[in-house]
């Protein structure tokens, strides 16, 4: 039975369902409850944007607040995962990975390989990414390309409340380290979500819209931007197939390649900065694996090669929008071999 709930509620529900189901699941992060040592109420925050609200009282002793020591508590989540727990640790903003990245890519990501296949590290790191809240250069980055680059990590970028719930439950049950990237500007986005528990497998893209003229691959919040563009284009007779990979690692190359085989045209929409981005990654993949089918240059719509600006007037220009996607699609469809 599906109800309309927000992206925030979907994530909270996924956490609650898994904590119900599996006592080894714990949650930790800065003010994931809020109020430790304070005179007022506990669970005062439930996370800086309220995503974990309510879990503290519902699951006594299983929601842990932390000092501002990301290396220590992300590392602790990883260590605990090697000893039978399934921690879900919150790295409040993905921008803060710089103070704890070692524990993620040199420890968690490499244990299994370095130790000859003998380690199992079922840790989930929930983290907020993305621009749009006027949070400026150190609180608005995408950065998932960096995690995607690292062998040993799985990277999830949910594009809707439905995806968020199913992918988070899968992330918690998954036996590998997972980076779960939540777009901070989507927490109030609503959508239909089944009340019951369900999982969405990793490495299986969602075809968000069918179309035969152009393939658009979009990541996270860019999926809705791509869908806007696609419906605008449809009115002018251009039908786009919009693909949401849902996980950037593993990446569902097959679905992307098959689509390009039939459309011959590809546009990739990625909120991250362009160099070594997901846009370049997917374009590079297709240029090797589906070159024969390509009938136009691969268009890449990304943020510019700059930090995220503060001023709303600049940030609105920074984030890829439907108009830029429309233009990219037209460039692809109108392109002629000279």
């Amino acid at each position, binding site marked *: 039975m599906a109800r309309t709930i927000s992206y925030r509620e979907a994530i909270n529900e996924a956490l609650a369902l898994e904590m119900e189901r599996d006592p080894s699941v714990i949650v930790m992060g800065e003010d994931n409850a809020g109020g430790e040592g304070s005179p007022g109420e506990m669970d005062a925050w439930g996370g800086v944007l309220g995503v974990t609200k309510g879990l503290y009282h519902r699951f006594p002793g299983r929601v842990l607040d932390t000092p501002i020591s990301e290396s220590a508590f992300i590392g602790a989540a990883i260590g605990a995962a090697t000893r039978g727990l399934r921690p879900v640790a919150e790295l409040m903003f993905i921008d803060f990975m710089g103070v704890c990245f070692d524990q993620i890519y040199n420890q968690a990501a490499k244990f299994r390989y370095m130790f000859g296949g003998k380690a199992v590290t079922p840790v989930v790191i929930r983290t907020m990414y993305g621009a749009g809240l006027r949070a400026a*250069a150190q609180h608005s980055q995408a950065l998932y390309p960096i995690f995607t680059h690292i062998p040993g990590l799985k990277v999830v970028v949910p594009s809707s409340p439905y995806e968020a719930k199913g992918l988070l439950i899968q992330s918690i049950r998954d036996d590998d380290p997972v980076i779960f990237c939540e777009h901070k500007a989507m927490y109030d986005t609503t959508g239909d979500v089944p009340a019951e528990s369900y999982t969405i497998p990793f490495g299986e893209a969602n075809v968000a819209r069918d179309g035969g003229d152009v393939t658009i691959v979009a990541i996270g919040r860019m999926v809705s931007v791509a869908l806007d563009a696609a419906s605008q284009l449809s009115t002018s007779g251009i039908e786009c197939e919009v693909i949401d990979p849902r996980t950037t690692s593993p990446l569902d190359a097959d679905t992307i390649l098959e689509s390009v085989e039939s459309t011959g045209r590809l546009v990739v929409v990625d909120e991250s900065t362009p160099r070594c981005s997901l846009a370049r990654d997917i374009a590079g993949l297709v240029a090797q694996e589906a070159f024969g089918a390509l009938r136009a240059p691969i268009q890449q719509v990304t943020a510019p*090669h*700059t930090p995220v*600006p503060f001023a709303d*007037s*600049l940030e609105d220009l920074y984030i890829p929008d439907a108009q830029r996607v429309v233009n990219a699609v037209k460039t692809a469809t109108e392109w002629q071999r000279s």
Partner: protein
Amino acid sequence: MTDLLPAAVAHELSEEDLLRAYRIMRTIRAFEDRVHEEFATGEIPGFVHLYAGEEASAAGVCAHLDERDSIASTHRGHGHCIAKGVDVKAMMAEIYGRSTGSCHGKGGSMHIADLSKGMLGANGIVGGGPPLICGTALAAKLQGTGGVGVAFFGDGASNQGTTLEALNLASVWNLPAIFVAENNGYAEATASTWSVASDNIADRAAGFGMPGVIVDGFDFFAVYEAAGEAVARARAGGGPTLIEVKFTRYYGHFEGDQQSYRGDEVARARETLDCLKRFRGRVIETGQLAAEQLDAVDAEVARLIDDAVTEAKAAPKPGRADLETDVYVSY
């Protein structure tokens, strides 16, 4: 680590010094109170962290600094900027995201900076500043300017590895650095009594080979005295000091914080501990300043803040031509 210092230094300060100190604290208070009001109207974008209640720290420390010296701030940086002499109108414009702002609107509240004033910026990363200050202090030492570097950071930041590493490095390199731990009782909704495993942040100084001092952060003179000793020692080649300043923030962690985790400490602090009230009382009592002089400062500051807001609202926003500039000196 010594105990709360008595503040018997008022007499050391000239009338001019006292007026300057008061003007800075009043400017910070008026600036923050006004930003609080304006934020409520929805006109100010982004995350805004206010310094109201903590004025004596920025003012008491920066009273000892000059152009040779540099400071690194935090996400709660308006007060440090004002105390180090950053233009108040440019700051307000920055908070509004205007091209007349300190950073042309590209930084916002969390990144206000003015390197020409030795203000290395507010910082969105907790613990981001202390390592940088090891560097500005190193530069001052190698250049022989006699300058010092001051890192302001919070109680929450005292648990960040970058801060702790910086304390050790400053001692190992014997740097002219001062680490000011602004313990306002909370990191977001978490009490420092819980997150800091030692009784005091200053207790950590010994583990990094430097003196640790605790001062009453509501008392300008107490901060002034402790900072004076630390700055003098640093300038003389005596190495770094850790000063823990204890007080309370008057507003929420950021604008919009419901603060259900708090007790009534703010009301009490505003009533009985407020740094501006105590400063006024003290200097009037000692006869060093007259109430009229202080009132005049209040009025002058009120006008400045009014003008700053009016001008900020009227100023243009940056446009497309500005989006991709200022990334590199050359590329």
